[in-house]
């Protein structure tokens, strides 16, 4: 279960989260993990630009949209937490099956 700024982003068994993450935040998180064998000079890992939003004035719509590489106009509306597969739910407008 992956949370971002107080909201659920994605929920699935651990193996699914690691192997086929759907939410852009989960993807960025998984991709920023270094493993033994990964060297800076061979493969520069990227962090997530920006910092988490202030929760005193949480942003409207998707809370990750300011830092999301895929964000588009629709993200100003809050994405529903949709079940996309057996045991796999995600809250992102870009995930197929989420379109309202």
């Amino acid at each position, binding site marked *: 279960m992956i949370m971002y700024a107080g909201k659920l982003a994605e929920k699935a068994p*651990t*193996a699914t989260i*690691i192997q086929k993450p759907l939410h852009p935040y989960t993807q960025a998180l998984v991709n920023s993990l*270094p*493993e033994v064998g990964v060297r*800076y000079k061979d493969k520069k890992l990227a*962090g997530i630009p920006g*910092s988490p939003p202030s929760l005193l004035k949480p942003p409207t719509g998707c809370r990750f949209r300011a830092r999301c590489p895929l964000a588009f106009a629709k993200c100003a509306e809050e994405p529903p937490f949709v079940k996309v597969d057996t045991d796999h739910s995600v809250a992102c407008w870009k995930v197929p099956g989420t379109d309202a």
Partner: protein
Amino acid sequence: MLSLNRVSKVYKVGTFGGKDLVAVRDCTFDVSPGECVSLIGESGSGKTTVGKMVLKLISISKGSITYDGADVASVKGGGDVKSYYGHVQGVFQDPFSSYNPIFKADRVFDLIRREYFPGMAAAEWRDKVEAALRSVTLDPSQVLGKYPHQLSGGQLQRLLVARALLLDLKILVADEIISMLDASTRIDVLNLLADLKSRGVGILFVTHDLSLGNYISERTVILRRGSIVEMGATDKVFGQPTHPYTRMLISSVPQLHKKWSQIEAEIGDPVVKGASCLFHDAYPTAGKNGIYAPTDPTLVKIEDDHFVGCFDLDNEKVGILAA
């Protein structure tokens, strides 16, 4: 630039300091400009003690640390110490303990100004601080004038790096600086260290995380119970780990795509019982009766830029500091 020569640290413990606790014994390695050396070891292996000795926070019991050829222990008196800290700085594990919660976080910059740049004009100082903050990818308007509790761990940690950058930084002792950051901030700080490296700063990267050490460093030193068991170029230490302890350490790193249930069977027993010790094959008399004479070597060279220490893991006495 920074060299450690058979450095040892003995802490006095027990009532009236009656017992000796050898935290670091006979450690010898160098940090060159623009090079990152990771110091890897388990809890209690003496990693932080080495970092503290480099930063002159604790005294050196035996051996010497030299910086640009000058003995660090003999740096005394306000002026010399100040100029040493002008080049050698440290950042520690818990950023919250480096700040006084009563004062605003940017007070750490004012302290630097008071000590090192008393004559600098306010506007010039402000530009310098903002340039340092930008080089650690912080937005000055977001962090200046805030109290420590209003900033995240990653922001505080980067503020401390920015503080070191205000000085003429040559050596940075980074003691577990990213252990408490989340995965994406961690990578940001690591990339920042790599950027410092390309500017010619030598980094002593103290960590227990092998994958982070492997990611950032050119050379790796593996410490166990205060002794160096293996050291050398990072790709050699990780590619052909030779000491049984290094092998065990590398095989015990969890991997993202492997689950506990699959990996358990693979680890087995990496320490080969009764394997011959490369170190004692090469130097049969060194460390005899568990005591290393000051002239004894502590590591054997097994290939170019790859050294390994004694294999006798079960013998507590081996490696004990020569009396």
